[in-house]
């Protein structure tokens, strides 16, 4: 007899569904810092809490909303850093069409104008903030060709493309360039990075800083 979910009595399935519903509720768990206190010594937790305690002793309870807002903003920053790390390699990036098309056009245009048409591009591809250009190098990376590539890279740098990597092949070189543009993410990542409450968190921090300035006067 083949196993199926139907074999489990309905009330057990309902019980498990209730447990899962609670566990999937984001505010339902004991906070990480409390679990942390379970395996860390009192001295370790006191050391980890030292900057927080000194801040709280100094500013007291009125600073709590701003502190909470800053914590949320830090979480957003951490999320963005993890997304940047996940997009560090060319192979991991998805294409930002608008930027990629414009940059590929610029790459081709600059190649024609640098060194009087001596550079031949086999292929160029841009993705999210990285571009790969395959340049024909039939004689390898000799001094003349190196000077030409450096001139090409310097011209592209003026167009916001920094040198990132260079790989030498048999009859070609692969030049990788990086822009400092903001990465474009998918719908869900962008939504997670810009939640509706973000403006409120920024306003809370700003309000607290304003209060501090006012108190100083």
């Amino acid at each position, binding site marked *: 007899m083949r196993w199926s979910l139907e074999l489990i009595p*309905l*009330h*057990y*399935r*309902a*019980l*498990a*569904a*209730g*447990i899962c*519903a*609670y*566990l999937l509720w*984001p*505010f*339902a*768990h*004991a*906070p*990480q*810092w*409390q*679990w*942390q*206190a*379970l395996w860390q010594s*009192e001295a370790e*937790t*006191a050391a*980890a*809490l*030292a*900057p*927080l*305690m*000194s*801040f*709280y002793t100094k500013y007291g*309870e009125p*600073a*709590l909303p*701003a*502190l*909470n807002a*800053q*914590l949320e903003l*830090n*979480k957003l920053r951490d999320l963005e850093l993890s997304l940047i790390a996940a997009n560090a390699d060319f192979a991991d990036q998805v294409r930002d069409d608008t930027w990629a098309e414009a940059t590929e056009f610029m790459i081709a245009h600059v190649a024609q104008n640098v060194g009087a048409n001596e550079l031949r591009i086999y292929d160029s591809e841009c993705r999210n903030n990285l571009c790969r250009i395959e340049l024909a190098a039939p004689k390898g990376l000799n001094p003349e060709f190196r000077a030409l590539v450096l001139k090409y890279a310097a011209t592209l740098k003026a167009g916001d493309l920094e040198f990132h990597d260079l790989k030498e092949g048999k009859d070609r070189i692969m030049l990788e360039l990086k822009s400092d543009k903001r990465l474009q993410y998918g719908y869900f990542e962008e939504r997670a990075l810009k939640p509706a409450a973000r403006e409120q968190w920024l306003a809370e*921090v700003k309000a*607290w*800083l304003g209060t*501090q*300035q006012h108190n*100083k006067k």
Partner: protein
Amino acid sequence: MAWHPTTQQKVAAGYFVAGFCAIALLDGVLTLLLPKPAVLAPQPALSKAMTRQDVTLEQWSNAAERLEEKRKLARL
């Protein structure tokens, strides 16, 4: 015609609520039983605010440090 749940469906809904409440109770007891750093004992307001955020002690301290930096920059 209006839909009416069968007895079996009502029992299943009861088990769903019971499962939800049981694990919520267990979690609540666990939150009470888990140790809290001794330095937090004299600061109940801070301790209460911290319980609402599922982050590490370091993340709390980083937020405090960042806020202090912002305050210094705002004073310049």
